[in-house]
């Protein structure tokens, strides 16, 4: 099935999110979200904890099903694909999880080689060569190959996760809070790796973060989500959608508050709850 409106526009977005709603039980996390991501773009999705950033990311890759609305990838509605087709489609994605989600039972080399062994029929020597090259790209030496994920630091785990996500050269890279839990230097290393990945591979990226330094440094465009429970019934959940350099001048005070890290009414709520 082809997405008619986007082909009419001449340039089809790689990801098109139409009136997306995701609800868990009675908890509405995403409500009527619309977003289009063009090929080659790097989009940072920001917002406070619990606003649905990770849920949005997992819906884009089809790990979560929308309650309403649809997600289109390269002109295909993910809901129209069966389990097997969706599994095949995911080869075109790379996903860096918040805690890297490396397989505990495997070594670093086996983790990075996993997608290759799953989807390519390559000689073992070539697989090893690719693994070493990918790990070198993220700045990891050969001596980590035989280590288990539990033996690595948080920053190293993230870099192994990045090497694994990039090993099949995906068209769309999804990063779930890539710098959370890392020291400022390692955060900057990860930001640089995201930038160098974009230079080396023609990849479209969606980065979920609440780190404004990451958003400013790597993104072409910033999208800010706001928790749906705090919105008025007719308000859109996307409060800001534009280049990172304009976000500080946004008209909506909730956007500037987030960017500057000002608690304001949250503090008042806290005081009210306490007494």
């Amino acid at each position, binding site marked *: 099935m082809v997405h008619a409106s986007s082909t009419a526009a001449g340039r089809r977005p790689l990801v098109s999110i139409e009136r997306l709603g995701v609800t868990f039980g009675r908890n509405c996390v995403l409500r009527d979200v619309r977003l289009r991501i063009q090929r080659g773009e790097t989009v940072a999705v920001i917002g406070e904890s619990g606003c649905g950033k990770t849920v949005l990311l997992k819906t884009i890759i089809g*790990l979560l099903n929308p309650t309403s609305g649809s997600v289109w990838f390269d002109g295909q509605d993910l809901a129209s694909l069966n389990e097997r087709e969706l599994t095949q489609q995911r080869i075109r994605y790379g*996903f860096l*999880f918040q805690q890297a*989600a490396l397989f*505990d039972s495997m070594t670093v080399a086996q983790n990075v080689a*996993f997608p290759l062994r799953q989807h390519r029929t390559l000689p073992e020597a070539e697989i090893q060569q690719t693994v070493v090259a990918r790990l070198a790209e993220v700045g990891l030496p050969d001596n980590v190959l035989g280590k288990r994920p539990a033996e690595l630091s948080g920053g190293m785990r993230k870099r192994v996760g990045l090497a*694994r996500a990039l090993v099949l050269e995906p068209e769309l890279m999804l990063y779930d809070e890539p710098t959370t839990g890392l020291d400022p230097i390692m955060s900057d290393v990860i930001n640089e790796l995201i930038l160098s990945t974009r230079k080396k591979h023609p990849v479209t990226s969606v980065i979920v973060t609440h780190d404004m330094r990451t958003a400013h440094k790597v993104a072409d465009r910033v999208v800010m989500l706001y928790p749906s429970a705090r919105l008025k019934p007719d308000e859109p959940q996307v409060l800001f959608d534009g280049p990172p350099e304009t976000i500080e001048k946004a008209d909506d005070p909730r956007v500037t508050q987030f960017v500057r890290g000002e608690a304001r009414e949250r503090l008042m709520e806290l005081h009210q709850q306490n007494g």
Partner: protein
Amino acid sequence: MSTPSDIPISDLPHENQGWIDSLTDRVADLGGVVLDALAEVGSMSLFAWRMFTWLFSRLPPRGTLTPSFYQIGVLSLPVVALTGTFIGMVLAVQSFAQFRMLGMETRMGAVINMSLVRELGPVLAATMLAGRVGSSMAAELGTMRVTEQIDALSSMGANPIHYLVVPRFLGCLLLIPALTIMADFMGMVGAGLFSIHLLGVDSHHYMENTRQFVSHFDLFVGVFKSLFFGGAIALIGCHRGFHCNPGAEGVGRAATSAFVLSFVAILFLDLMLGIVLDAVYYSIWPEAPKLF
């Protein structure tokens, strides 16, 4: 905090109203429990359906089968053998006094070995497997769920049911007959040695009675039932792990509920299969003496 004496009389519920409210609350609670149980059965059935569609479409990679088979089969053998031996000896101890009073000690072999082959062997092997493997599957897959490793598998184009559940299911299904035969064998050895060497039962008659009363069909019944037990243990353990709640508590609960549910499933299946296989037996040998 307000005490009952602080509440105005006008705000207290009418006696009948309170009784009706309490009844409707209980009916609602019961309804909630029934709905949750139905949802659980539905979720388990869909999970099993997805597992069977993957099982019959493509075998999982050998790299996933070998560790599962080793974990389920090889590592379970010692505990199953040990349990079987002790149960055999315990049966000998418990039945000896009764049979001796009747002067029928030599019939012990038939009774003990029949119980072992038809019931205790398969149920014990399955219980050991549920405790050792079923709960560990739930804990392992639950941890993978909580740490997003199952999502990571999906994101890399590997189906988690095909990659994680099918090898475990095949391991339990194909290796539980071997574990059952091991439990049967060790139980027979334990009971035989204990009866003959320690209780002084005549070995020739003990063996002869066993040979006369325990048939191949009895052995088949035990092994056949074990296939269902193995399948249920794997499906329940994997389903609990896949639907694990977040956190250490969620993983702990998944492991515990996997064992409890597996045990209940083993006993339920044992009863159902017992009835079905008895009907099969009497349809093949109609002249055999019936219970009812």
